[in-house]
């Protein structure tokens, strides 16, 4: 695979001892010293045992496959076993890219102002030990910035060959004013992974981030996205999650400029024995911003889905429009959905709503399908697809939407909820 590579990259092991990265790490070390790793008694870890992220993985093989439907002709950065091995050729549609090691060698790199800064801000609302640890220890990651007023795209593919591996990655994304960046992230970093994104969506910019957390049987990962969103900008994060042992997705988005938008959404196909936790905090800190959180989880017997979503509206964020919904469809008797919606509002002229439901497949619908001749398992699958399909509305790109719909079908079929025997 390396032979066709645009650029083969050296490992960036020698981080300058007195450079910006080093000083950011020292600050993170101090934060981590104060916080330590979370305990299950902590408010946001009651439903997911944080100890799970510190034990060896139980993966059942290498994870190198590219999910079906991922477009081939897109600029792609490839990681192997937690290290960057390939970056795409520069081009008009490609954001400017650097590895963390290369950027650290450049004292005036834009990353200097961003690395660890959004993570540190997010620590002020809730202590986040895994994120501080990541900022302290990450040796690899990529830094991507768009040029102003362009439309660019990037894929990040993680291959990992060993189940017992660990990976800590820290990426920085800067979406320049008036530009548009689409990021598609897929694969598995390691048997046990800790990933941080810090994302700066500047004024009038648009960022769309799609994560395919699949093809990761038996793996454990904690993935954290910290974003700030400027005036009239939009931040969109969609996660399709399936095939895990355990995943914790933390997302903190701060709407800091007027007219900003944040959409954080996801769909989960929870196989037996898997645990999927989505914990989202959207902070409205400017007027006239809009946010949506939409999560749907299909949970098979013995799987657990967690959703902890909060909308925090600060006092100057008048005319806020905040929305949050989380729903679970339980297939069988022993799946569990644990939801904790929260609103904290300090402004007086806002509209915020939240809702959460869980239940089995609708009996009338199931009967309708079976009465047309579709066996029970297959009928349940079609209903599960219909249930998840609502989240597809959150994706604006039609081809990405269709790719994810097909992946949903594939994963539902693998569940054994299927009649396609």
């Amino acid at each position, binding site marked *: 695979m390396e032979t066709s590579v645009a650029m083969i990259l050296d490992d960036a092991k020698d981080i300058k001892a007195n450079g910006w990265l080093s000083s950011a790490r020292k600050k993170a070390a101090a934060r981590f010293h104060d916080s330590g790793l979370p305990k299950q008694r902590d408010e946001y870890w009651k439903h997911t045992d944080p100890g799970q992220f510190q034990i060896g993985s139980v993966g059942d093989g290498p994870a190198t496959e590219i999910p079906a439907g991922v477009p081939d002709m897109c600029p792609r950065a490839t990681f192997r076993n937690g290290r960057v091995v390939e970056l795409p050729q520069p081009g008009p549609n490609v954001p400017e890219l650097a590895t963390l090691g290369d950027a650290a060698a450049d004292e005036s790199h834009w990353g200097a102002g961003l690395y660890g800064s959004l993570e540190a801000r997010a620590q002020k609302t809730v202590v986040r030990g895994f994120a501080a640890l990541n900022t302290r220890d990450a040796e690899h990651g990529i830094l991507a910035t768009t040029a102003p007023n362009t439309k660019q795209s990037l894929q990040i593919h993680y291959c990992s060959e060993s189940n017992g591996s660990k990976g800590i990655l820290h990426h920085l994304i800067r979406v320049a004013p008036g530009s548009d960046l689409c990021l598609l992230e897929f694969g598995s970093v390691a048997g046990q992974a800790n990933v941080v994104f810090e994302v700066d969506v500047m004024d009038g910019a648009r960022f769309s981030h799609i994560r395919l957390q699949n093809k990761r049987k038996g793996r454990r990962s904690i993935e954290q996205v910290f974003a700030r969103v400027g005036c009239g900008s939009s931040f969109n994060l969609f996660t399709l999650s399936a095939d895990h042992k355990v995943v914790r997705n933390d997302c903190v988005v701060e709407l800091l400029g007027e007219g900003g938008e944040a959409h954080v959404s996801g769909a989960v196909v929870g196989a037996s024995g898997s645990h999927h936790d989505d914990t989202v905090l959207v902070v409205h800190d400017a007027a006239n911003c809009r946010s949506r959180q939409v999560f749907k989880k299909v949970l098979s017997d013995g799987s657990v889905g967690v959703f902890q979503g909060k909308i925090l509206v600060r006092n100057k964020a008048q005319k806020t429009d905040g929305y949050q919904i989380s729903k679970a469809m339980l297939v069988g008797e022993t799946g569990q959905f644990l939801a904790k919606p929260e609103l904290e509002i300090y402004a007086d002229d806002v509209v915020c709503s939240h809702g959460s439901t869980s239940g089995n497949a*609708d*009996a*009338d*619908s199931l*009967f*309708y*399908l*079976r*009465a*047309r*001749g*579709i*066996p*029970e398992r*297959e*009928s349940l699958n*079609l*209903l599960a*697809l*219909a*249930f*998840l*399909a*609502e989240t*597809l509305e959150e994706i604006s790109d039609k081809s990405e939407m269709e790719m994810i*719909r097909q992946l949903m079908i594939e994963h539902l079929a693998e569940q054994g909820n299927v*009649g396609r025997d």
Partner: protein
Amino acid sequence: MLIISELNVKLEEEDKVILDGVNLSIAKGSVHAIMGPNGSGKSTLSYVLAGRNGYEVLKGSVEFDGRNLLELEPEERAASGLFLAFQYPVEIPGVGNMTFLRTAYNAQRKARGEEEISASDFLRNVRSKAKELNIDDGLLKRPVNFGFSGGEKKRNEILHMSVLEPSLCILDETDSGLDVDAMRQVAKGVNSLRGPDRAILVITHYQRLLNYIDPDVVHIMVGGKIIRTGGPELAREVEENGYADLIREVA
């Protein structure tokens, strides 16, 4: 083709008897109608025949083409040729009408040990049926019943029926919520499915659908029993005098 004998059914969760000794035989090629006031058990009969959960058969039997229908799962009943057109067709967002119909068609063929049909042959077949029924192609691409108008939902039921080619069609209050034009179109669809090998059972509250679908036999159902059976003139009698006279007669 269908022989219902002394069928007694109660709700599973309540001690409420809904069907109280129903006897009904439908021969191949014939069109029967069941009329009755609200709460007489007409829709329950259709659900029990199609295999819906929530009912308990206390006694009696249903024989369909020589098989004990009550032993079969809903999908097995469908594969053996029974079709229920729903009073309230269910919306299934995210699943295309065409995909759904092909899944159902192939599942039935598979259950009967027949070869599955290719996507392109199926598409051609459905398109031509849709055209006969005056159904817009757009309806095939949209998610099943999702956002369909009342008339579109009922026409879609008739399209499903026409594609799946059942030997026994049960139409449960297909006329409810339809305006005259929509009803005429639905009736036209149903009439096009009449044939020597197919029986049709029309369940309706009003006589007006029977102006367009001419039944061979009309049954009046009251209190979970069939109290009168006659020809098409029985439906007209009900339209003129209501059910009260018939109920009095029996009492």
